[in-house]
């Protein structure tokens, strides 16, 4: 395996980490304002992700930094190409990020309601935009001979991309609801489960529609052979198993299964893209690949040492923080946010 290939795997892992972790906190952010019947309840929902959302978001920031370092062309083409979607995503992440801190600083309903909306919008928008980006990763984008994406931003919004956006939204929604179910008790817990039951069929249909359409409009599910179709299908099975009312895997089991589903879906897309990182719809020759987009061997080697040395610590202390804050929240608990 070449270093560039190794770095492709690492960046895939960073994106998987981002989707799995921030995925559930997006999901919680989507529902807190609607599931919580009073201020206290909304706060409990928000506090289920209180200690985690920030570090979860760092997975995205680090993925961005790693792309910049290991595949400058990928970073440059993608970030300048998806310009307008990224502006919206960043605006969403900004209002969402401060909403956690600002919300409980003031008693008035108006103030808190404003920040509830900031959290809601800030949690809805990024999953949709990432779904659009993933779908475009699959179908390819108009990248010219200079590795520049051309044609403006409306072209990203083709039907399959919109399907991708809505699919990811629902996937993160059900993922977030499972997270709530392992972090709360009583009413709050019941309500998340009830909603999960209601939206589960929609999430499943969208997921299935996405992988079936993806199979026809893109080559990524079968690029390395028909057998790779197994990955997205297993992703669907995991989701079905996790969301079905008949399965008896328990709350943690369900959360684990939605996690697996996100991992498999993301992995199937990135594996199918490989060795391409940005597929050109103009000509195969213009596609960015792990080879023509990568940094020099020196940088890749250096970065490999750093990541191999540091990632175990990062994973270790992040896991530890999940461990110390694993206790379920109750309405009468002291809340920080």
């Amino acid at each position, binding site marked *: 395996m070449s270093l560039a290939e190794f770095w492709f795997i690492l960046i895939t892992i960073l994106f998987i980490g981002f989707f799995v972790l921030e995925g559930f906190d997006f999901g919680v952010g989507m529902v807190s304002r609607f599931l919580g019947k009073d201020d206290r309840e909304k706060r409990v929902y928000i506090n289920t992700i209180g200690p985690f959302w920030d*570090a979860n978001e760092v997975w995205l920031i680090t993925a961005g930094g790693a792309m910049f370092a290991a*595949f400058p062309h990928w970073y440059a083409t993608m*970030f300048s190409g998806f310009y307008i979607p990224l502006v919206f995503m*960043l605006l969403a992440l900004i209002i969402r990020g401060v909403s956690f*801190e600002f919300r409980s600083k003031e008693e008035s309903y108006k103030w808190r309601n404003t920040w509830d909306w900031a959290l809601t919008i800030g949690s809805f928008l990024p999953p949709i935009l990432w779904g659009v980006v993933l779908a475009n990763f699959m179908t390819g984008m108009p990248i010219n001979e200079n590795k520049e994406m051309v044609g403006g931003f409306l072209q990203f919004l083709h039907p399959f991309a919109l399907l991708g956006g809505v699919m990811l939204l629902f996937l993160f929604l059900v993922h977030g609801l499972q997270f709530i179910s392992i972090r709360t008790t009583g009413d709050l817990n019941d309500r998340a489960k009830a909603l999960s039951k209601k939206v589960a069929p929609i999430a499943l249909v969208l997921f299935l529609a996405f992988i079936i359409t993806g199979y026809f409009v893109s080559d990524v599910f079968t690029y390395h052979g028909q057998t790779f179709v197994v990955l997205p299908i297993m992703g669907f099975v995991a989701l079905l198993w996790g969301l079905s009312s008949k399965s008896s895997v328990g*709350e943690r089991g369900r959360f684990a299964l939605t996690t697996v589903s996100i991992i498999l879906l993301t992995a199937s897309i990135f594996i199918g893209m490989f060795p391409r990182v940005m597929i050109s719809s103009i000509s195969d020759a213009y596609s960015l690949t792990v080879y023509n987009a990568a940094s020099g061997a020196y940088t890749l080697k250096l970065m490999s040492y750093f990541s191999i040395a540091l990632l175990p610590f990062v994973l270790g202390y992040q896991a530890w923080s999940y461990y110390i804050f694993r206790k379920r929240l109750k309405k009468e608990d002291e809340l920080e946010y």
Partner: protein
Amino acid sequence: MDPLIIARLQFASTTIFHYFFVPVSIGLAFTIAVMQTMYVVKKKDVYRKMTKFWSVLFLINFAVGIVTGILQEFQFGMNWSTYSRFVGDVFGPSLAIEGLLAFFLESTFIAVWVFGWDRLPKKVHLASIWLVSIGTTISAFWILSANSFMQNPVGFEMAGERAQMNDFVAILTNPHLWSQFPHVLMTSIATGAFLVAGISAWKLIRKHDVEMFKRSFRISIIIGASTAFMMLFTGHWQAQYLVESQPMKMAAAEALWETSEDPAPFTVFANINTEEKMNEYELQIPYLLSFLSYNKFSGSLEGLNQLQAEYEAEYGPGNYIPPVKTLFWAFRIMTGVGSLLLLAALYGGYVSRKNKLPKNNLYMKAMPWVIALPFIGNTAGWIMTEMGRQPWVVFGMMKTEDAVSPSVTAGEMLFSFISFTTIYAILAILTIYLFARHIKKPVFLEETPHKTNDPFETEAGGADHVTG
């Protein structure tokens, strides 16, 4: 409108705005860590309450710092894709390592700290705020290693159209980095310390919680005085380095059009005419510039016009003179502010040692205004650093005008610029509002220490719920 101008405006607004919050995060994290250490060591509740009081401000500030930082990182790819392709190999690793080494550390342990009060053993909890403080410092180091590459590119070779790293040690030992990092670190800690001192003075005048704010004032003024002193020292050191490495930047900062006489006088004030490339009036102190530049009363400095001729010979025709007026005044504002800060801190340290503090009204009334000075100085410093490098984005290698994204339209950039500056304005107002709200409350009630939540006890309730 030219996309280049919008992209530059956006970079300037994002960087300046982001940098209102960064030094406060670095400075407050350190100051609060000191306060909490005193709580853990001395076991006095006043230190606990103090730590909690300042943490409210720290966390508001930190939140805004984080969200503006995401854009700071992503805008290289969004607005400056040609630049990103050109230097990603050398510049990118600093950002990636910053994420791996600093951002994960800060974001995880700040949550451990916020949510861990009374839930974690005291020393573990104290360690978490120190880890946050260390994280902010590491973060500063890596982002400055990236900036230093732009100022003084080292450790690379050209591979076709792109710069490729070939010497990581050179990047880590870049003299620009080591002239810049200590200065930035000291000014940042000073910024946080003066914020605490200024607010404490305001509270003491109003006799709010005198015991707590007297101590807060004392801690912060000691930190402020020592860092302000080192800030001037490291700044001086950095300026001397810049005379050698970026003579154009320093010549512009001195509005020195023609190579100076030997010994060189220092220009206190000048009426600069950039059209005629001369100063119409200048007030000078003889010998001083030589002394400041070389630690001796001799030696001349090259002028802008001479450097321009040299650069044209080396890099081809073009204008290599950065905006002289801006640099000249930015430099004076920065150094003036720094000197005032040192005076304020030394005097404050003196009176608080003598325990004259609450009576000393004129000084105490001035201190809340002093809070603004570090922010002015920080901004002026970055304007000088970044504008002084123009027309280059990477000194001697790539011009700013060649760095912008070719595929992004002016309209898209304008949309992004307007959206982000609007949201910055809103965030600024909200931050000030929330700060003021917290500060104005006469009584700070730390929420009653709740029943100890032992994180290691077995889970209650929910796990037994029937699923499905």
